[in-house]
């Protein structure tokens, strides 16, 4: 536990130094995106990594926060309220989606997440009060009360704080009854039931928390981007990005999502910058190749592979 806390502390310090020292808007944008994706990846990791139920609809929870922020701001309310509002809606959606499907065997849960995400996407696109397909442009009004800033620095600080919070929560998860129960359920649901673990109850708790985390990231995103529409928040493509970040980094590991986000952002954005324009698709080619390699050679992901190696060194499997 201590090394994890130290690593987290180091990341926070480096992040704050970067905010203080770097004034390159492109770099700060990369940093913000990286932290946001790390949060989204960890959110996904709770239900899909630790609990083992793969979600392909995680963008809807991200969207809950983003739309909650857009609605608050356009109705003259404080965007800070959106953290609570988005969390409530996201958790409710998670409970409704998870209740009938989380305790089923097979891929029903994954299918349900895709279906619910498609439904929400269609619903938003026809609902005038949600901006239909055009989305929302948020009025510009910088200041802490409005959670809006002229510079990128404060956004990075907020994203860093959210990332730290989510990592702390996950360290707590690994050392809590919930964490033990999720791992047991993932490994063997029948044996888990035989020691009194109620699969639906514990997975619903994990899913609700997962949704709340993604929603918080959505609020920050909306306030940063000042524009919210379906393709940038709730589209299936975003859900898949989130899932891939979790898989590449290593599912069910504390640092996997952060590493996955790093790989994703460096490649997707870095390559796009280097070779110009996402339109050429070099980033997708390279990222796709990495995913294929990991799927074929290291299905436990980058961090999962490292954890296994450490375990072997300590002789746990000997």
């Amino acid at each position, binding site marked *: 536990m201590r090394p994890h806390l130290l690593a987290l502390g180091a990341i926070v310090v480096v992040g704050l130094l970067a905010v203080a020292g770097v004034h390159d808007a492109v770099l700060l944008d990369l940093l913000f995106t990286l932290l946001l994706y790390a949060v989204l990846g960890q959110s996904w990791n709770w239900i899909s990594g630790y609990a083992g139920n793969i979600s392909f609809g995680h963008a809807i929870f991200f969207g809950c926060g983003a739309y909650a922020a857009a609605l608050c701001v356009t109705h003259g309310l404080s965007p800070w309220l959106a953290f609570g509002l988005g969390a409530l809606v996201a958790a409710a959606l998670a409970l409704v989606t998870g209740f009938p499907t989380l305790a089923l065997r097979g891929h029903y849960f994954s299918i349900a997440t895709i279906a619910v995400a498609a439904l929400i996407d269609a619903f938003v696109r026809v609902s005038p009060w949600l901006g239909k397909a055009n989305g929302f442009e948020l009025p510009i009004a910088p200041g802490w009360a409005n959670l809006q800033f002229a510079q990128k620095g404060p956004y990075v600080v907020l994203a860093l704080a959210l990332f730290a919070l989510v990592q702390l929560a996950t360290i707590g998860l690994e050392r809590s009854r919930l964490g033990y129960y999720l791992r047991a359920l993932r490994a063997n649901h*029948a044996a888990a039931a035989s020691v*009194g673990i109620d699969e639906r109850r514990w997975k619903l708790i994990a899913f609700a928390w997962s949704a709340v985390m993604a929603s918080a990231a959505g609020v920050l995103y909306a306030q940063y981007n000042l524009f919210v529409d379906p393709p940038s928040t709730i589209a299936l493509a975003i859900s898949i990005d989130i899932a891939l970040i979790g898989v590449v980094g290593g599912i069910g590991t504390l640092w996997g999502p952060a590493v996955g986000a790093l790989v994703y952002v460096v490649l997707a954005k870095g390559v796009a910058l280097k070779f110009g324009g996402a339109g050429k698709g070099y980033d997708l080619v390279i990222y796709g190749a990495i995913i294929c390699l990991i799927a074929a050679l290291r299905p436990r992901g980058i961090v999962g592979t490292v954890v296994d190696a450490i375990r072997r060194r300590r002789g746990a499997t000997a």
Partner: protein
Amino acid sequence: MTALLRVRGLAKRFGSVRALDGVDLDVEAGKLTGLIGPNGAGKSTAFSCIAGAERPSAGSVLFRDAEIGGMAYHRVARLGIGRTYQIVQTFADMTVLEAVTTGALLRHPQVADATARAEEILGFVGLAEKRHRLGRALTIADKKRLEVARALATEPALLLLDEVMAGLTPAECRDAVGLLRRILARGITVLMVEHVMEVLMPIADHVVVIAAGKTIFSGTAAEAVRDPQVIEAYLGSPIAEAAS
């Protein structure tokens, strides 16, 4: 007689197959009851129906005089019935200590308390030195021990053991019998399914024999081996054998 578990007319159909067709059995508190029968008799199905893993088609399962037949699996554990699996079911990526801690969390919600309890149980079953090994890396005898430890960690009043001796060497069997005696000494009631009768003979207070999904005998182990119906169930009727 105080029956901790009382099973009456237990039946289980899978489609048109009658796996169980009238199993009666009593498990007396504080005693070791053996459930035996030839291959395909329905031992494992009966076991699953009692543990809550399968829903009985008919009949009743009374635990402490309350009906538990068809109750959700995890709730049966909560009431105080622990079980092991015939084919060991480990939590693959957990260490021995973590797996047993998971069981202990049922009665001790704080991980620190549950871990302390798990350490104590690992000492009791003789796995303390292997507590940081992964469950999947253990020998078959140790895996079975781990299953018993995990079930004991839930602090059951009734422990259901499904062929814990199968696949063990004679020396390992002797260790297992020693462990069983220590479990009984703790006041835990045991219902044990075994295919091999010799294993149960010296330790079972009471034996129930089932064949073709029905209870055909209930009594002491010594009586069981002399019972014509039991002999016939195990060896087949001489006339049927001659005819085939």
